[in-house]
């Protein structure tokens, strides 16, 4: 037994895909299912955060999850946030605050922010920085990213 047909529930939709045990969720998302919003920034060793997705609402590195272990979970990628051209409030905040430069860390950052704000919309600056500790950014110095997350947290969920 190697190859298996599994169902992955991504962004509220079922996806049937054939995988081998060693197939990593990040690669299956990007290469097989075209969810290229999730990025790969390190050698699949959980070092950069660009591959962050939500698994049952919790931020994880998709480069460290076997596709087979993601069966039965609700996977959320960045593609799930906007509704057509209507951006999620966190995405809007990132644009308004100038928190996007090259954009590579952005999907992972936004999902980590979402996981944080869903749990704690009044997160302080310190708590925000702690939460995004696992998301590296080379362009912004994090300053406007933290501002954007704070901004998005105002009236969150209302």
């Amino acid at each position, binding site marked *: 037994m190697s190859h298996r047909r599994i169902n992955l529930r991504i962004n509220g939709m079922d996806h049937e895909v054939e995988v081998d045990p060693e197939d990593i969720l990040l690669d299956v998302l990007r290469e097989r299912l075209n969810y290229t919003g999730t990025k790969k920034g390190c050698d699949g060793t959980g070092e950069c955060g660009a591959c962050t997705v939500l698994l049952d609402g919790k931020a994880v590195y998709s480069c460290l999850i076997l596709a087979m272990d993601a069966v039965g979970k609700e996977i959320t990628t960045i593609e799930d946030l906007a509704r057509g051209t209507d951006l999620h409030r966190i995405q809007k905040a990132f644009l308004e*605050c100038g928190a996007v430069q090259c954009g590579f860390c952005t999907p992972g950052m936004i999902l980590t922010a979402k996981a944080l704000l869903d749990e704690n919309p009044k997160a302080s600056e310190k708590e925000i920085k702690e939460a995004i500790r696992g998301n*590296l*950014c*080379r362009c*912004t*110095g*994090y300053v*406007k990213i933290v501002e954007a997350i704070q901004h998005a947290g105002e009236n969150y969920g209302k």
Partner: protein
Amino acid sequence: MQMRIIYICVALAVKCSGRPVKVVHNREEDLVCDTIRHPARIHLKTGVKKDGTITARQCLLYLNNGAYTHHGDLVAGAIGVVFSGVYKTPHLKYDANLVYTNTPYGGPCRGFGNVQITFAVESHMDDIAKGIDMDPVELRLRNAVSEGDETARGTRVGRCGLKECVRRASQEIGWELKRKSDKAGRKVKGVGIACGNHWCGWRTGFDANVWRTGYQDPTKLYQEDPASPFIRVREDGKVGWRDYFEQELYDSDASSCILTVNEDGTVIIQVGDPEIGQGLKTTVAMIGAEELGVAIEDVKIVGVDTDSGAFGIGSYSSRVTLVLGNAVMDAARKAKASLFDIASRMLGVDKNELVARNRRISIKHDPDQYVLLGDVAFRAYSRREGGELVFHGYHDPDSTIPDKRTGQGTISSTWSYFAQAAEVEVDKVTGEVKLLGIRSAHDVGRLINPLGAEGQVEGAVHQGIGYTFFEELEWQDQGRTRNANLLNYRIATAEEMCPVTPMFIETDDPKGPFGAKGLGEPASVAVAPAIANAIENAIGCRIRKLPITPDKILNALKSRGKED
């Protein structure tokens, strides 16, 4: 990192396979094989009078070139150019050596040599200040260049906000009070400042023949490929370049764009330089929109496409706002002139009476008389006498190629200036340095996109902080990189950033679009010396080797006999 050989490999792969080709480096390859910032060893000697006036400066530079030369010579040249333009230095000697080592090879990296030399020069300036018992801010203000000064390279300084930047940065960090604060106890605070300049474009003058053929010497090319179309054998049997292919230096720093005003008054601008996240598209759209009097949403920027005909040297050297911005101004002015031609007929006035604003073309002294820009544009397309609205914009700055031997000449038509001040707290028992804040003051000529400009400063300071404290490729015997991953080659996380305060000084530089200068690299340049100077203020020890680590702090304290 910039590795031109990759482009050739990709092109060949496409040619052989007939398929689209994508090249991806994994992170290990990136950290081991791609170009790195040149490590440098710098010796400085400065002659200075008791009143603080610099009389002479000598610099001997060794760059660790790595295994191959890839921009090493250009970085060495750039250093010579840039550091001679900060202070008035009547006599300047600069010698640079590239040393081959069995380590990853150096290439362009934000700052391009300016980071290394500024660490040395600005640390040295504080040493000088201490030696003559002068305040470091005062020493800098005394020697900083001003508009009209001539630098050691024979170039005249243009719009220059250097002194203002030094004043602002020192003021904002609380220089007067904090410099002399109590330095007793286990944890001590200190402030430091560093300043510099940076180019806004770069007329490199590299050898075009090498660029086009890979060879400097036609006889060597002939040996490899006698049938090369670039060479010919003359009657006397000597091999030379083919006719009209003379040895030449690449004497251009141009960018261009193609601007189209659509029939509804919206605008498309095809640019020749790439958006890499620095905000080129937004800045350029703002310039075009401002000039044409339309809203920024009306302007669509089409990115770089080698099929498009818009040429640009590239997004580097902090050149894009100035050079591409000017090219867009050029095209926008041409567009406006054509639109005004049509509008003047519609409104029955001379075109000098017209102004473009808010999607309208109106009469200056009677703004209630106007035509919609969209209607003017439509006429251009719909009438026999109209004419198309497609314009080429081009700008080549009035810089000159520096002489390789004397260094005379200016690579950039204007220069940006900046000063960065840092506040630190040093724990004298653990050696840990806590960064309390960075104030970064920049002469930007004219601020076009404030949010984007702040982002550039904040991001560049992040790199400066990494350069100062954490980032070090660890090589061991035989040049093996042992920390080729992002866990052990550490860039700052959000928790490791201190508050960063960008400040902008507008000097309205006539060389740039609406007076703007470049800002891509400057904020990465003076962070390390500002921090090193702040540490010196706190504990009286000068750290001369980066990165600054706790063990270096404790060793320095020990040698001063000051360890608690």
